[in-house]
């Protein structure tokens, strides 16, 4: 283990050269910008093939153990790969719940059998994983999970409904949070965590049509679904702790995730290049002074987000409100992206009235979809309004709302 700068630099070159050769070009249809947007078999097949090739080449989970499909290297090598994927603007590695949540969890607390059964399929993309935390009436308040799992012999019998299940209709497994003890004194103690199969009688994943017109999520119904008791991980009543543990892998390869690219980065430089050929009042759009000013404002906001990440690492420059930058990152980034993508739509002029599927729509409708789908980030994982409450209360010390 351990990695020298020289080793990392030469590895970077190798990865970069491989990507120059193997980065798939335009497939002729719109690819998902995030793993939450896989809405057709065509997209799924394409992404599955891409992830398989990336893993076969040895560039996914390079720091995961060799015996389960990794290469047993230092996580720094995977971070190098992830950066190169971004730089080369590759498609996403779509099996995100497996790569970033279930996989590292199984490696951390699963037994030998679990590891042997699940890890390779996660890396190769053969086994798609989904996540069953949210429920229709409770949003992201996990403590209120109502789905029941009742022990019956060698099985648990599950009843309830999960929602916003990403790729629920394609997944082979689900990480499932369910209530095993409704009488627990503290509601968190009544929860358990399962690695549940999806192809079981009594589980129905019904695709939800998004405001974009596309699919990507399901509402997942459990009706007396029997899953083996061996699916329980972390022990009965410890589901809350296990769920919290899965959240910390989000920070990337260094935190244990397999790595890859969960979403396509969209930045203002892309937007400017997309609108550069357009006209306004018979003149190039980018010569309009008001447009120029608005774009500069957005560029300032985008750079501020990048700078905040750098400054966050310099302790003396964070003495006022030490948690301010980390706790506000999601709010700033998602809201900035919303404003930027919304403005892209405005700049498209009459083009902005077209949509995915039209022959003449700019970039296949990329910006239309980019704007609409961005609401997944200002709503999911705690809405911007909840984020503002959290920052107000935990950073500024304002009283609870």
């Amino acid at each position, binding site marked *: 283990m351990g990695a020298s700068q020289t080793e990392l630099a030469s590895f970077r070159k190798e990865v970069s050269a491989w990507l120059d050769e193997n980065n798939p070009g335009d497939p002729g249809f719109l690819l998902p910008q995030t793993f939450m947007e896989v809405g057709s078999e065509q997209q799924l097949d394409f992404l599955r093939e891409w992830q398989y090739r990336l893993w076969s080449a040895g560039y996914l989970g390079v720091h995961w153990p060799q015996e389960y499909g990794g290469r047993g290297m230092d996580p720094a090598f995977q971070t190098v790969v992830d950066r190169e994927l971004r730089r080369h603007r590759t498609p996403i590695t779509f099996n995100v719940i497996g790569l970033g949540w279930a996989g590292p969890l199984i490696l951390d607390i699963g037994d030998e059998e679990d590891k042997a059964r699940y890890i390779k399929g996660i890396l190769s993309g053969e086994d798609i994983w989904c996540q069953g935390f949210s429920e229709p009436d409770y949003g992201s308040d996990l403590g209120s999970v109502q789905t029941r799992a009742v022990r019956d012999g060698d099985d648990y019998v599950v009843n309830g409904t999960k929602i916003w299940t990403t790729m629920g209709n394609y997944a082979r497994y689900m990480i499932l949070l369910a209530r095993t003890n409704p009488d627990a004194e503290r509601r968190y103690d009544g929860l358990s965590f399962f690695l549940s199969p999806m192809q079981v009688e009594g589980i129905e994943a019904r695709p939800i049509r998004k405001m974009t017109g596309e699919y990507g999520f399901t509402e997942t119904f459990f009706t007396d679904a029997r899953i083996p008791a061996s699916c329980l991980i972390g022990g009965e009543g410890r589901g809350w702790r296990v769920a919290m543990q899965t959240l910390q892998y989000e920070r990337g390869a260094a935190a244990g995730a397999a790595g890859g690219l969960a979403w396509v980065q969209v930045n203002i430089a892309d937007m400017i290049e997309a609108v550069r050929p357009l006209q306004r009042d018979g003149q190039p759009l980018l010569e309009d002074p008001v447009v120029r000013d608005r774009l500069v404002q957005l*560029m300032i906001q985008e750079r501020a987000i990048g700078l905040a990440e750098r400054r966050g690492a310099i302790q003396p420059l964070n003495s006022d409100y030490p948690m301010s930058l980390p706790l506000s990152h999601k709010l700033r980034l998602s809201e900035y992206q919303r404003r930027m993508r919304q403005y892209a739509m405005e700049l498209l002029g009459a083009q902005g009235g077209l949509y995915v599927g039209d022959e003449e729509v700019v970039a296949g409708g990329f910006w239309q979809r980019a704007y609409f789908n961005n609401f997944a980030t200002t709503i999911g994982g705690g809405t911007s309004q909840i984020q503002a409450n959290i920052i107000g209360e935990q950073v500024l010390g304002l009283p609870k709302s």
Partner: protein
Amino acid sequence: MTADTDRMLISLSEEQAMLLDSAREFCRNRSDITSVRALLDSDAGFYREVWQELVSLGWMGVAIGEAHGGSGLGIGSAVPIAECMGRALLSTPFFSATIAAQALVRGGSEQQQDRVLPGIVEGKIATVALLESEDWGDESVALTATVVGDELQLTGAKIHVADAAVADWFVASVSVEGAARLLLIHADALAPAAISAQVLIDETKRSARVDFTGARVPVANLLPGDFDLVIRDLRLIAALLHAAEATGSAFACLDTTVEYLTTRKQFGRLIGSYQALKHPTVEVLCAVEDARSFIYHAASVIGEGPLEQEAEIACRMAKAQASEALKFAGDRAIQFHGAMGFTYECDAQLYIRRAQWLQQAFGDAYHHRKRLAPLLLD
């Protein structure tokens, strides 16, 4: 790769971290709100003993080379000091003298530097006289210097000359035979009553209209440096230092608002619990945090030579962001203090007034964004 790294560079040297620490403590100790208010209707606008103390701490020499008695840490190291002063609303001629010194560092001859810079390190006050109208974007210079033998005879006036009443030296933009130049002028050369104080919206600041008409200055006092280059860098540096001051003031303003929101009750609840107040306050926090990122980014990429494009972008973004952040913080501070906020007694007025002063100083947000556009879009 390099350009990308520069674009996101923020570093803080050990010296700068120590400077930040000691500046913060000094400013907090020497400039509580009572002493700030005690100065509001004074003539000088600052305490001589506080000025002497900060001079003896070496702060006037931070951006002046060791050859002239300074510590040569560079102009980036003036940023933490400026930020701390802004936070404590501490007024001294630090800004005027630091900016004027940069004119000499970047555009002065060796003799001019030898003559003026060691004095500035030891507390002599210098200032710049650049502005003639409301238009910070006006590149023309109306203050005329007519050559008479080996002397220049001046005709014309400048406004917004900070700390003019206490300045020993002025660095003014003048027009000599149709060409714009920078000129070093000693206070003794001014005619009696040449300086008339202006009434400023920010009562912690002091500025004057200075009529240079009749002053005679040796031709040798013309700065030899390339005018366009030096004046551009001078304005960018001044914009950055004012951005740093604005950032500090915006943090202090935010603290004042948060203090009120966590103590004031209405309808039986602390008003900070209402989302209508809480959420905009979080927006203020984010705006101020962004300003802070930009000032330290600019401080990290600004060098001693002529400013590179990345440094120009950083300074302009810093001023654009910090001006807006303080304006927003000040505006919301008044509103959220309710009727109390409408009084002179409430400290919120100090910040909204400062916001209006600093907004215009060395160009407002739009002035800088307009100049960023060709750098970023073309």
